[in-house]
């Protein structure tokens, strides 16, 4: 299972802070994004940053996920 977390404005638009997505061999974080975007279009319109297991990831790099990975889809930060 892949754990997907949401925070701040993205969580508000999803209506959840966590969603579990079934793991498939070879899947990348971009596949999870592509799967969730049609379900939560308003939330994913805000998403510009993603992290896998706490590390920021680049859109142009595809690395297969391990079962149990944690993905976070985030909007631009506004702390400070």
């Amino acid at each position, binding site marked *: 299972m892949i754990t997907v*977390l949401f*925070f701040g*404005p993205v969580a508000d638009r999803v209506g959840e802070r966590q969603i579990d997505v079934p793991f498939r061999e070879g899947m990348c974080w971009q596949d999870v994004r592509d799967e969730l975007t049609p379900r939560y279009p308003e939330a994913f319109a805000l998403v510009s940053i993603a992290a896998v297991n706490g590390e920021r990831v680049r859109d142009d790099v595809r690395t297969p996920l391990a079962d149990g990975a944690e993905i976070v889809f985030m909007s631009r930060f*506004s*702390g*400070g």
Partner: protein
Amino acid sequence: MNDAVRLQLEDFSQDEEVRALRAGSMRMGGIATFLGCARDFSEGREVCEIGFDAYRPMALAELQKLRTEAIERFGLIEARIVHRLGTVRAGDNIVFIATGAEHRAPALEACRWLIDELKERVPIWKKEITPSGEAWVTPHP
């Protein structure tokens, strides 16, 4: 004393943070600080409170990386960063950064660099709570 980098619900003491910054060395000739506070007015609206949400493990790790990078990049002797989470009222403290160096220039430059980088790199989001509703803040310079 508390860790040099922290995320916490409670308020902090600037005096205690500066005291902790200075505790490890008497070679500091310049100390710069930045204090971010909650404004009671934003985008033409009265603001009563600000709520913070964070991806805590990554936020803390990023803050620790920022401190290490600042120390190396500006040759600091020490640096501390504290950011509050939860809900703060208008006028309350939000974030405190303190940098200590042998001379003032690197301390001042590092302090400015740290708050600018924090806003770009640390996964924290703020929501303004007004008498007429709540709204997440859109980042601006």
